[in-house]
């Protein structure tokens, strides 16, 4: 196994330790509780934002803790959602008296564990709003239960984070988060599997010259395997379902995010983005903002997730608000 690693058991803690060491002014890693919190908690009254999920998807989730985004993150083991105790500890750190929004990706483990935590916390009097992220366009709308939470997670955390920072109340923050999810679709492809540290070998084999179409996180295979075409054609595959579902047409205003899956070189990712941008622009849409880089990943998978968010003035304004986290920073 070609990895920078001490042992499979320490991978997650080592990552979080290093992340906190590199960003001491932003975040703190509480090893016993296995949570990451802001180095300087937000002021009293701000609605709290908590997210978490399996590790291996870095910079999700700890990389988005900081002013303008999350108050706390609870990273689970590799590809394993966090446990209720962790989620509850993160919620306590994030609760500034005005309630907490959970940003939950639609994976069974996450839904169940955040659900258990929310039930216990609600009984204890904490106000919780659960926002389910299910932007995966690889399943048709009638299979919405299968729709995974993918790139929208990052966009929702940014936008809801800005709304919370502005002093919006719990319901308002949850509402803008849900509106963001509803306006976003993501589609992914993978040119390789990944090697989970404990498994010690790739989750699946992919013959050279092929790729998986419609993947999520966690080293998932896609729903289909096909011969790998040119980047221009991959751009079409990424866009087809997204554009159809979002009804993208002349005048649509968009934020795009193209994330590598962990081992995708920047030269390839931007090359692919050029074709995506070109097709969107030719369709008459206006790309207002874009992010291209490693924003949510699957360990060392080679691949890309394209997210497209249809925006209006309010969402763009929230997007442009300052953010200062390990993985996303502007205006600060």
């Amino acid at each position: 196994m070609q990895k920078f690693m001490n042992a499979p058991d320490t991978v997650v803690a080592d990552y979080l330790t290093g992340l906190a060491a590199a960003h001491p002014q932003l975040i703190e890693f509480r090893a016993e509780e296995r949570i990451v919190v802001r180095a300087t908690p937000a002021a009293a009254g701000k609605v709290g934002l908590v997210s978490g999920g399996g590790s291996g998807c870095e910079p999700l989730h700890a990389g988005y803790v900081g002013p303008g985004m999350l108050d706390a993150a609870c990273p689970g083991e590799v590809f394993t959602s966090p446990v209720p105790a962790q989620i509850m500890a993160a919620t306590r750190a994030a609760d500034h008296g005005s309630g907490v929004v959970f940003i939950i990706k639609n994976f069974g483990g996450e839904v169940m564990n955040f659900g258990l935590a929310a039930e216990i916390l609600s009984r204890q009097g904490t106000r919780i709003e659960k926002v389910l992220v299910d932007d995966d366009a690889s399943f048709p709308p009638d299979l919405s239960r299968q729709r995974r939470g993918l790139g929208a997670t990052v966009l929702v955390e940014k936008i809801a984070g800005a709304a919370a920072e502005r002093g919006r109340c719990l319901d308002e923050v949850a509402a803008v988060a849900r509106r963001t999810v509803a306006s976003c679709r993501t589609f992914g492809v993978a040119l390789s599997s990944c090697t989970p540290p404990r498994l010690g070998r790739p989750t699946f084999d992919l013959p050279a010259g092929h790729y998986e179409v419609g993947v999520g996180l966690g080293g998932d295979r896609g729903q289909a395997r096909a011969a790998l075409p040119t980047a221009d054609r991959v751009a079409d595959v990424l866009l087809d379902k997204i554009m159809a579902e979002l009804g993208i047409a002349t005048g649509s205003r968009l934020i795009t995010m193209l994330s590598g899956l962990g081992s995708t070189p920047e030269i390839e990712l931007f090359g692919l983005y050029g074709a995506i941008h070109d097709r969107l622009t030719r369709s008459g849409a206006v790309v207002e903002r874009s992010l291209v880089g490693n924003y949510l990943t699957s360990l060392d998978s080679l691949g890309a997730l394209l997210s497209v968010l249809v925006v209006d003035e309010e969402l763009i304004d929230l997007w442009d608000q300052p953010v200062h986290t390990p993985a996303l920073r502007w205006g600060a």
Partner: protein
Amino acid sequence: MAEALSLDDLRRWLEHFADAVVSQEATLNQLDSATGDGEHGSNLSRGVAAMRRALADQSFADAQSLLSSVGMAIVNSVGGASGALYGTVFLRLSDAGAGVTELDLSRLADGFASAAAGVSELGRTTPGDKTLLDAIHPAAQALREASAAHLDLGTGTDRAALAAETGRDATAAMAARVGRGSYLGDRSLGHIDAGATSMAQLFRSLHVATASR
């Protein structure tokens, strides 16, 4: 030979299961890698380690406190889908042990029926979806039938284990409809479900502990 499991028997059951999970960690990861993300064995290994720490407490007053303590240990150590589901299994099973220090076939049947229902509710799943429910559901039914037929404990738990194992094997022919396997559609066909495999082991361990009393 008592026709009920004492608290010590329950401990031996869980010890046997823990040993089995640890020794099968790689196999379970392997199975999970065929349709999922390849860490079910590692997840459960963490769970049984936490369970052992919980069982170090020698002061359980009844089967409920022992089993619910195990359930909480699993819920807060495993994570993922299986953590919540296995935790639910033990928490539901614990209800059948309220105020008693022994579980007979009838209580086991009640407890596992409730556990299977809990899995179905929390996981929003039914038998045939290619999950651990496909092992626990028939096992619970076998216990119910064995109890109704007044079979002895050893035979009853063996039938449960056999039913779980049959259910486990049947998952190979199923297309996953929930969990990570469901992303694969028909490509999940031909692979035995990891969670059903560990769940079948839970029943096999129950029988071993019963038979070796």
